[in-house]
């Protein structure tokens, strides 16, 4: 059976002496698991945020009237009456001034400051922007329509880049964990070289010897990855309040059910990776002997 190696008899367990979880392997795996999970959770949250934001702005536009003032009501009515418009609302002038105050300070409240009028609207699925443009041109020829996806595009692009960076970091850390396991396996082989020679001499196969090491490294990897996952879960819980606020801004939860399942499976995946890498490393090292 494929998993025979997992169930060692007491006599087989005694062959390598000592006990599992004594060396640095569980600690290294725990650190890798913790880091990977934090980064993976961040990457998934970024993915969800970008996705929610992207959907929200896909059909959202603004009509900007540079001269502002009294034309906003007529502009709003024109937009609302255009075919294909799902909803439209004008941004109050006070809100505009409050926004400008962040850059201009009290000067933003000056009546001498020209504040553009702004009407936001959403188009229905498949509706044409041309009809809205024609309606707007009739009441305000100087008005221009801006698609939100164009203005928010660079932010979405940055979010996509960040999620790929997170994915890359998870891969890098998994690779580092695999490399650490290879070193641990080679170290274990060096430590037990005498036992291996004796076992080979009396007719043990490479697989019999490999199973001993594979099982021990699997236990170390499982303990380390679960410990790292628990620590990561605690940190993510501590960040949960801030995350829920960010989730509200993004229009939904930052981590969803499938994401949590993926994160829960990560320690298992890391353990399987470590075990397979250990198996290959041990078999390769044993092949160097006759």
């Amino acid at each position, binding site marked *: 059976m494929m998993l025979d190696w997992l169930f060692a008899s007491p006599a087989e367990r*005694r*062959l390598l002496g000592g006990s599992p979880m004594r060396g640095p392997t569980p600690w290294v795996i725990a650190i890798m698991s913790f880091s990977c999970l934090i980064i993976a959770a961040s990457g998934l949250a970024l993915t969800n945020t970008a996705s929610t934001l992207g959907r929200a702005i896909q059909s959202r536009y603004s009509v900007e009237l540079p001269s502002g003032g009294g034309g906003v009501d007529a502009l709003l009515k024109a937009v609302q009456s255009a075919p294909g418009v799902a909803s439209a609302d004008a941004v109050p002038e006070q809100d505009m001034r409050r926004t400008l105050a962040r850059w201009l300070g009290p000067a933003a409240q000056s009546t001498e400051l020209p504040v553009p009028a702004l009407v936001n609207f959403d188009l229905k699925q498949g509706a044409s922007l041309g009809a809205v443009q024609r309606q707007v041109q009739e009441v305000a020829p100087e008005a221009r329509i801006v698609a939100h996806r164009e203005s928010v595009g660079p932010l979405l692009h940055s979010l996509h880049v960040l999620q790929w960076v997170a994915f890359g970091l998870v891969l890098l850390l998994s690779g580092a964990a695999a490399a650490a396991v290879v070193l641990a396996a080679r170290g274990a082989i060096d430590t037990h070289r005498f036992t291996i020679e004796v076992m080979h001499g009396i007719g043990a196969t490479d697989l019999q010897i490999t199973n001993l090491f594979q099982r021990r490294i699997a236990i170390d990897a499982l303990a380390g990855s679960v410990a790292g996952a628990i620590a990561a879960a605690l940190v993510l819980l501590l960040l949960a309040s801030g995350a829920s606020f960010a989730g509200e801004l993004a229009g939904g939860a930052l981590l969803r059910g499938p994401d949590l399942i993926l994160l829960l499976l990560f320690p298992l995946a890391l353990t399987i990776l470590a075990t397979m890498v250990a198996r290959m490393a041990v078999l390769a090292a044993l092949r160097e002997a*006759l």
Partner: protein
Amino acid sequence: MSQAWQGKGRQSQAGRNGTLSAVAEFDSVGLRYGTGAEVLRDLDFRLSKGAFYFLTGPSGAGKTSLLKLLYLAQRPTRGRVKLFQEELSEAPREDLPPFRRRIGVVFQDFRLIRHLSAFDNVALPLRVAGASEEDVEGPVREMLAWVGLADRASARPPTLSGGEQQRVAIARAVINRPELLVADEPTGNVDADMANRLMGLFAALNRLGTTVVVATHDVGLISATPGAQMIRIEQGTLVDPTGTLKNPPGRS
């Protein structure tokens, strides 16, 4: 089985009747380590099933290297080595374990696993061969009693004397009833009394049908083992150009 070893063309009676009686056959075998000079040259001999051999020669003559070829710890760099009627010189390494299980080896330095008890050390070949724990317990206890260590079963090697460790090593080597027993200076670390007792164990095993090859400097042991035959090696080659059978020197 009257002939101990012979050069090519000097087949024993058993050999003339077929190859089944040969446990090992060396044909033009040479061995070198790395790029160094050959430590073994032009070895041509066969070991008959059920015979008792002493391998002698000065230090550095190549005794240990020859034994390594016999217990498959080394491949020849040229020539052919047949064990149990199988050509193994170039056999894939994954094919070797079943043959190693048919060979018992006693090392001069015992090679016991320090963190295992005497019981576990002796049980190792049985467990490697896949025996269940029920099938291990009885034979191991019996073997430990046979070598006089029944009461030291749970002792670990560092707590055993040299003689006791050697007996554990012998018990481990013979627990599987090997067809070929190879011993490298097995009495090098024990006193004369213990050496005689160990040789008695080998002789008893030989009487049960195991072919025994013992490398030793101790001429006294050779002369004290009736019927044993001698292989002498000097400077990497067998010294007996005529192929004449050599019974223990004191008796020839």
